[in-house]
């Protein structure tokens, strides 16, 4: 089964224990000319140490402002089957559960209408269908909506496809229902997801607890992270079982041999707030000092569980470096109950978006807007009350913009009066 192009460099990537995308695509190349040309193009990129895709072109489906990344090869004469090679971002089901039926049908469609190559999944969370031609965009969209009950995800200055961790579906620590939240937001804001209305992209991500398995705090303009505000639930007997060596510490994450947990050095001393005590029999947690970091819970999952008064901490502003430097999200709502229909949360979101749409410059992420205007303006616009939980530290620079409303006489002064007291 000789392929059209020799790929000596790529062939090197067929070796080794990790799955090889080269082997995989070669297998496809026999039946998909796009895959064959793609391999040739990749080989040439490896030779030149330069990519061979042109700067993105604007293509899409009618009425949508996103969901498709236009892509053209810069050597179409050599690789005509990837001359057009557009990506379609398909909004994944939250937490990416599938059955084989839907996957098989998607594959069949993509073999027929696209390259047969995918990313499962894109970094934002979408099903990424990698490579098709312009004329296939509408038919794919038609099939997605009609036959699969699926829709495109986000791209451009839109809301981007929201995503969450696996949450309550399979995780005992989840303090919020990540799937329901993600689904609800995705449905509520379909218009924002499909039609550019923002200064730039906007991302929601939801994690069920502080482990943050969807990396929300690092890469979502609005990060929703589950937490609790009552007490960690303790099963003292199970604690003793860990200490006694009857249960595997850390649920086996560092080895499944049974061993006695050294609770002092492995838990108590590592608690970031040192709010725990072990007297040999009972574990005491001073919950008022706990910052809910999850460490003790993850080490003794059969003994400790998050509290029951659960909700989310809302943080905003994470983003990659372009333009003003990378940011992590910052706390703006220390605690909020998250129950359907999430009215309070959505009110917040809409205030935040109003501010951003009004004040944001072209290609200015929310985090950058807040950097530019100050967190104070953001809180004001969103009608949030300043709280020490929003900062690691109060300001240390003395350049305070005092509010004239709080100053007797505001900014007004009487120069004459002043000069009657002070000669110039």
């Amino acid at each position, binding site marked *: 089964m000789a392929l059209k192009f020799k790929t000596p460099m790529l062939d090197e990537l067929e070796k080794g224990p990790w799955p090889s995308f080269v082997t*995989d695509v070669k297998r496809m190349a026999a039946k998909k000319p796009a895959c064959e040309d793609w391999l040739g193009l990749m080989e040439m990129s490896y030779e030149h140490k330069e990519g061979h*895709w042109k700067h993105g072109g604007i293509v899409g489906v009618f009425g949508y402002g996103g969901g498709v990344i236009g892509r053209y090869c810069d050597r179409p004469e050599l690789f005509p089957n990837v001359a057009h090679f557009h990506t379609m971002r398909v909004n994944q089901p*939250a937490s990416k559960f*599938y059955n084989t039926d839907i996957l098989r049908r998607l594959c069949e469609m993509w073999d027929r209408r696209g390259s047969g190559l995918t990313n499962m999944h894109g970094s934002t969370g979408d099903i990424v269908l990698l490579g098709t031609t312009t004329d296939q965009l509408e038919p794919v969209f038609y099939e997605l909506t009609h036959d699969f009950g699926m829709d495109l995800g986000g791209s451009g200055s839109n809301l981007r496809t929201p995503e969450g961790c696996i949450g309550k579906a399979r995780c005992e620590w989840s303090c919020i229902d990540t799937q329901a939240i993600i689904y609800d937001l995705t449905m509520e804001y379909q218009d924002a997801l499909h039609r550019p209305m923002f200064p730039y992209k906007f991302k929601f991500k939801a994690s069920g607890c502080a482990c*943050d398995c969807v990396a929300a705090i690092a890469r979502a303009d609005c990060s929703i992270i589950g937490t609790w505000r009552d007490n960690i639930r303790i099963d003292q007997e199970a604690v003793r079982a860990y200490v006694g060596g009857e249960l595997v510490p850390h649920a086996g994450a*560092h080895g499944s041999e049974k061993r006695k947990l050294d609770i002092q050095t492995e838990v108590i001393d590592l608690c970031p707030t040192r709010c725990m005590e072990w007297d040999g029999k009972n574990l005491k947690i001073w919950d008022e000092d706990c910052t809910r970091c999850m460490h003790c819970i993850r080490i003794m999952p059969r003994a400790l569980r998050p509290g029951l008064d659960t909700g989310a901490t809302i943080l905003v502003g994470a983003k990659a*470096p*372009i333009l*003003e430097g990378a940011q992590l999200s910052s706390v703006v709502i220390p605690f909020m109950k998250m129950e359907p229909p999430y009215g309070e949360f959505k009110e917040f979101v809409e205030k935040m978006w109003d501010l951003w749409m009004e004040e944001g410059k072209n290609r200015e992420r929310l985090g950058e807007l807040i950097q530019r205007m100050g967190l104070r303006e953001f809180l004001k616009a969103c009608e949030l009350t300043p709280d020490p939980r929003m900062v690691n530290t109060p300001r240390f620079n003395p350049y305070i913009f005092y509010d004239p409303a709080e100053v007797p006489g505001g900014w007004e002064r009487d120069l004459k009066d002043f000069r009657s007291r002070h000669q110039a």
Partner: protein
Amino acid sequence: MAFDPNNLLQDRITDIGPPKYDTFMPPIVKENWGKWKYHEIIQPGVLVHVSETGAELFSVRVGAARLISTDLIRDICEVADKYCDGYLRFTTRNNVEFLVSDKNKLQPLLDDLKSRGNWFPIGGTGHSVTNIVHTQGWAHCHTPAIDASGVVKSVMDELFEYFVSHKLPAQVRIALACCLNMCGAVHCSDIAILGVHRKPPFIEHDRVANVCEIPLVIAACPTAAIKPKKVGEYKSVEINNNRCMFCGNCYTMCPALPLADGEGDGIALWVGGKVSNVISQPMFSKLAVPFIPNEPPRWPTTVQTVKKIVETYAAGARRYERIGDWINRIGWERFFERTGIEFKHEHIDDYRLAMTTWRTTTQFKF
């Protein structure tokens, strides 16, 4: 009705969003939703979650290249049909999880997976190196300084033993982004592999005005290196090369300013970031190696340097210490000493927040 290319509006459905989340969930998940009590990692790659109802769900995690073909998805389906009643999921780091609700099918599933060559490596749980979050590279994007999939494959081959075991002091999250846009969100990874350019864009003066909005291009430059300029007949721009730090943002706005360059481009390595709030707070990744040339097809210098970092960490860190925690304990002076990486001018920040990174104490180690 069937699709009619001449009448897009006919029978058009829009804004239906994704399938509801529970559409493809296995029954055991729906039944035990919110009732999970605890979990255990039985062996690397194999989790069991136990419900308050007593139900047990086994998840078998296998590594995937992420850039996968429909054939491979069909292979995955074949396995899932055999052992999982057709249910599976993908993780947030692009691994596949086979969801087994019948304990008897667990071992046969594992045996089956192992029999399939290097397609389905089992691992990525606990204190391992799990899958590398990555981006497009030369596979699809227009701004990369490096390939993504090839580098990932090369690194994972070398670190494979850490994927299939729990030998490390804590989890090690590696991410790759092929340019400073950082679609892989590498900025908070234990180890980040980042594609970097090192030559300023050229300017195709005859194209700039045609294909770009000059004011947007100028605004795009974080260091204000770009100014409008008339070149002969053409309205164009000029770039102050001394101010350029090769971010490529101008190219994003303007195809007539390409930066990719076989000799100029390569990899910077970053270490010590994290996302979780467990014990320590989320941290950015910090520069370890400013530049390694592109060495396709297997990027040996990058691979070996990453390995050296991982193994120095594995040898020196205490249990539960992420790479960043380990470095914070031993100090950066020791990190560079022990890994043998040279400390250079590039390591010292010189952008907006630079002064917050300088050493404003006499506390350091000789």
